[in-house]
Structures are given as C-alpha cells and as structure tokens.
C-alpha cells in the first residue's frame, strides 16, 4: 500500500472528505483519508460505529443519502477514473457491474415484495442487455448454486422474508457478483449473523475472490475478521485512518495507541476467565466534538500535550508499508 496512488491501483482514495448537512450545520464524517487497494487483494477497514467507515464505502459508490450527504474533497479513483466527477449515467453502469456492494442487513437491501429471481435477473439485465432470458436465468441459477443456495428454480420464486438471515446474505452476495465485479465492497456483511454462519459467509467471499480475482474492501468492527480474511488493514477512528499496514505487520506490531487498545480490550479465548480487561476509557467523540489534531489522545491514558489535539497531524510511513498518524502521544 502506498501513500500516493499508483497506476496499478484498483481503487485509490486520496484525502477523501465527506459529510452531511445536519440541523446543526455541516458535519464532516470522513476527514481526509487516503488508501489504496490492488486488484485481487482484500483490505479491511476497521473501526467503531460513527468512525466513518460506512460513509467511506457509500462515498466510493456515490450512494451517500441525498440531498444531505456530500463528498467535499479529495479524489476517488477506480481503475484510474475519478468517480467523484463521473456523470451519473456512467456511474450507473459501473455500480453493480464493475464494482458492487453488499450491505449489513440484506432485509433492507432486498426488495421485500419482489421474488429473489426477479431481483437477480434485473441485476443481470441492467448490465447485459444482449443476453437471452434463458441465458440470464442459467447464469442466475449457476450463481445461486455457487453461493450455496440449493433448490434451483423453486428458489427464484421465493421472497426475501421466506429465507433465513444467512440465506438472504447469500442472495445479496449472488446479486453483487452476478456481473463479475472487479471491486466488491462488503459493509459489515456478517454483523447480523451467528458466528457459525459468519464463518460460512466470509469463507464464501474469500473463495469467490480467489476464483474471480476481484479486490475486496471489507468493512467491519471485528479485528478477528480482519486477521482471518484480509491482506491489508486500515484502522479508522473519528473520521481518520490512524494506522494502516499489512495484517501481519499490524497484528504483530501495532503502533498507534488506538489499535493497541482495541486489540488488548478484546476478550480472548486464551485469556484467563473473569479477569478485568484493559478497557479503553471514555467513548468515541461525536462528530461535533472532533478536534483538528489527534482525536484519540484524550482517551489514550498516556501523558499527552493538549497541543497534539489542536494541530493537524501527518501520516507517516514508519516502516515500509506501515503508515501511522503521527501523534507523539499515541505513537509507540
């Protein structure tokens, strides 16, 4: 991963800034983040609720809620094309085609009163107007089988409410992959599911990624999921990326205090039962309390100069491929 976009990047964000018009005025939710994803690789974007990870995903897809959500700065390059300035018509042909997205709660993303066959076929027709109806149906059935939904044609007539949560997520994955995207954005795809079903879904995404060679941006709050399924990881806190590296680097040598605290506060299977966890004090600052400098320093418990919360911080490469927001209080 490099700080400046290179020509081989599938996706490159540079200094992306996005936010919302609210009743209390303009609020930034993503505050100048940069990251890059190569074809066939998977990047985990980790953070707690409100850190801006979903807003990042929606900005890439240009799906921020209208009329209040806007990208206000930076660039989003998909295969070298700047998505931020692309006309709507061209975007529409990319979305669900070369790049697609799966969401946390498939029940809200699937149409409740249209059969899943209908919805899957539509996704295919939108991007392939030439194919015959039979050819389309054959592809849909093949994809359903690939994501582990047995039952063939009968399934096409079912409605989302007739399926379990895991099955609905499989339908979403099938829909997202029908047009063989080169970029898949998965926003908390397994958060609503049981651990056993979570493992099935993540393995499925990993298999399909290998098969199709697509790049995956996996958004999650679970460091375990990242450790098991991603090549690279970016840790977000209060609208910024505080650390990014390969998963091997990040888990072996976390350098930012937030990353370290997140890892330490997780109940581990090897840990001793009923011992106190090294918890992070306080809570994630709300959007209106964001300072211009380090937003984690006040919670880090480390001695810090208030000045570090007041001045903008640089992101520095402290070893090849390992980038950290340079707050002297949080960096170790």
């Amino acid at each position, binding site marked *: 991963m490099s700080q400046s976009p290179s020509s081989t990047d599938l996706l490159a964000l540079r200094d992306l800034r996005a936010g919302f018009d609210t009743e209390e005025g303009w609020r930034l939710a993503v505050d100048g983040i940069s990251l890059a994803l190569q074809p066939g690789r998977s990047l985990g974007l980790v953070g*707690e609720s409100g850190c801006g990870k979903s807003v990042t995903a929606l900005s890439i897809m240009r799906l921020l809620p209208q009329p209040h959500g806007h990208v206000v700065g930076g660039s989003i390059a998909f295969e070298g094309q700047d998505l931020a300035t692309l006309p709507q018509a061209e975007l529409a042909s990319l979305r669900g085609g070369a790049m697609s997205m799966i969401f946390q709660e498939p029940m809200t993303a699937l149409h409740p009163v249209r059969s899943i066959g209908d919805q899957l076929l539509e996704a295919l027709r939108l991007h392939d107007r030439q194919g015959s109806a039979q050819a389309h149906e054959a592809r849909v059935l093949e994809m359903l089988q690939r994501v582990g939904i047995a039952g063939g044609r009968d399934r096409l007539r079912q409605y989302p409410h007739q399926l379990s949560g895991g099955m609905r997520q499989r339908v979403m994955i099938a829909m997202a992959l029908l047009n063989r995207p080169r970029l898949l954005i998965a926003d908390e795809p397994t958060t609503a599911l049981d651990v056993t079903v979570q493992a099935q879904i993540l393995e499925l995404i990993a298999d399909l990624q290998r098969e199709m060679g697509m790049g995956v941006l996996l958004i999650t709050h679970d460091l375990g999921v990242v450790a098991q399924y991603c090549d690279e990881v970016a840790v977000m806190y209060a609208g910024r990326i505080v650390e990014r590296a390969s998963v091997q680097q990040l888990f072996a040598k976390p350098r930012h205090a937030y990353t370290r605290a997140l890892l330490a506060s997780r109940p581990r299977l090897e840990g001793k039962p009923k011992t106190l966890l090294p918890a*992070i004090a306080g809570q*994630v600052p709300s959007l209106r309390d964001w300072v211009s400098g380090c937003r984690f320093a006040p919670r880090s418990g480390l001695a810090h100069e208030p000045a570090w919360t007041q001045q903008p911080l640089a992101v520095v490469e402290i070893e090849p491929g390992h980038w950290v927001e340079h707050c002297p209080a949080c960096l170790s």
Partner: protein
Amino acid sequence: MSLLEVTDLSLHFALRGGLLRRQVAKCRAVDGVSFTLQPGETLGLVGESGCGKTTLGKTVVRLLEPTAGRIIFDGCDISHASASQLRPLRREMQMVFQDPAESLNPRHTVGDLIEEPFVVQGLGSGAQRREWAHELLGRVGLSADAYQRFPFEFSGGQRQRIGIARAIALKPKLLICDEPVSALDVSVQSQVLNLLLELQREMGMSFLFIAHGLNVVKHMSDRVAVMYLGRIVEMAGAEELYRHPRHAYTKALLDAIPEADPALRRPRRLLQGDVPSPINPPPGCAFGARMKHPLYPQSLEMDLSLREVSPGHWVQPCPCCT
C-alpha cells in the same frame, strides 16, 4: 447450597393454525435442561440464535412459565409460583437486556428509571430513593447529572450502564445477563464487561451470562453450558471446555470464532446449513441430524441425558458427536 437448581426444565410453545386454531406444530424452545448455579458463580450460556438460551433465561426467573421441570431458587420451588408469590422474590433476581434502548422507557428520566424498582417494592422515602439512585449512578460510572436526563441522551454503553444500575438496585442474588454487550462498540464492550465483573465481586451475585460469542462467554464465566436446539449438549469449566471440547457442536462453535491473529489462519471445518428451527426438531441428537452423521440413527434409541466424562465436565453421550 445452590442458589439455583434447575431440573429437567422444558418450555414448549404450541403453534396453532388453520380455521379451528388447532395445534399444528410444537416449538421445543427449552427441552429438558438441568443445571445448578452456586452463589457468586457465573454460568455462561452459549449457542446460535434460536437455540433457546434467551427463553431459558426468562423461564428461570419466571417471566415465562415452564411446561415441565423444576426451578428451585434459594430453596424455594418457583416452577409454578403465582405472580403474587413471585413479587417478593423479584428483588432477588433481575435481568440485563441486550438492547438498553428498548428496555428503558424513553419518557422517564434516568432518575425515575433507577428509582422504579424501589417504588415497585415500596422501599424508602422519596429522599432516600433519590440518594440511593445517586449512589447507583456513581457505582456504574455515570455522573450525577444523568439523574434528570433522558435515556436517548446517552450512548449505547451508557444506556447499558443505566440498565445495569436498575438491575442491581435491589441487590439481587441472581442476575440474568442476556447478550449485555452484543449491541455495543468494541471499545465499550470491555468497559461493561469489567463493570459486571467488579459488581459481582463486590456484591457476590450469581450470573447466568447469555451470549452467542464463545470468547465473551468464556471470559465472563466459571462454567459454560453449550445449548443446541433447546438442550444443553455440553457443560464444563470455562477453561476445560475451551481446551478439551468433547461435543462436535462445541468444537464447531470454537472453530467459527475469528481469532485476532493472522498467524492462526487455518482451514475451517465449516458447519453446513443454517441454524435449524426448534419447531418440530428432529428426534435424537439434533446436531447429528444436521451433520447427517452416519451414527446419528443410533442416538434415536439412546438416553441423551448429560454424562460426566471427567470431574465437572458433562456431555450429551450421542455416538455421532462425541
């Protein structure tokens, strides 16, 4: 003496349908569960959604009435106690829920919410209750000005603290914690888990700690029971269960946890299929049936009550899973 002794507890719901509302199926939410809980002890209850762990928790404190079996709480048989018989016991057993936003009345101030248990039990004067509420706020780590604010003004973690303050107000002996941190952010989860551990140490409460994540359950518990389709399939000390799981389902649950260490990547033995429904479950070992294990038919003929395989380690003795 055990604080809680549950023997062969079952709760079956009848599902009715058709014009005559005849019973068309039976949901065996809890099906022949036995366990004990000592004072100050935590029993973790883990399993996939729909396995009956929440129903079991609610039945134990008699928010639901069991179909069969016995619940002895603090020497009292409460299996079929009436509401008025239960009222004095309500002080002794309380619940903490998964979603504090839904379990706190949004129109009441935090002060009202925390004083409510005293009001219901007719304890203290207004001034005393106010003082107790302030003590409780401090104890769960909330500032005194929370007293006149409303639940929506708080974050998820703080709301869970309000829920906990309410639950411990009457100094219960038993606290049922039903997924108390599942809805919380990672950095806040550990705060709430620590608070529960500290309160337990101080007050000597027993916990029935229900969650779907085996790592959280293991961290909080002395002993852990694994539930599958209404039945406990394995129960042992927390360390023992994690180190020497005997039942195939426990192994599958352990295997599904993504460990936060890329060095521990491994091929997973994935569980096939969905979490099965407790409506008309298969006879015999339900997990063997899900796995289509060749030895599953043998479990149909067997008594599947838990057997002790080593001291304190109990397993359902089906040939397909052990």
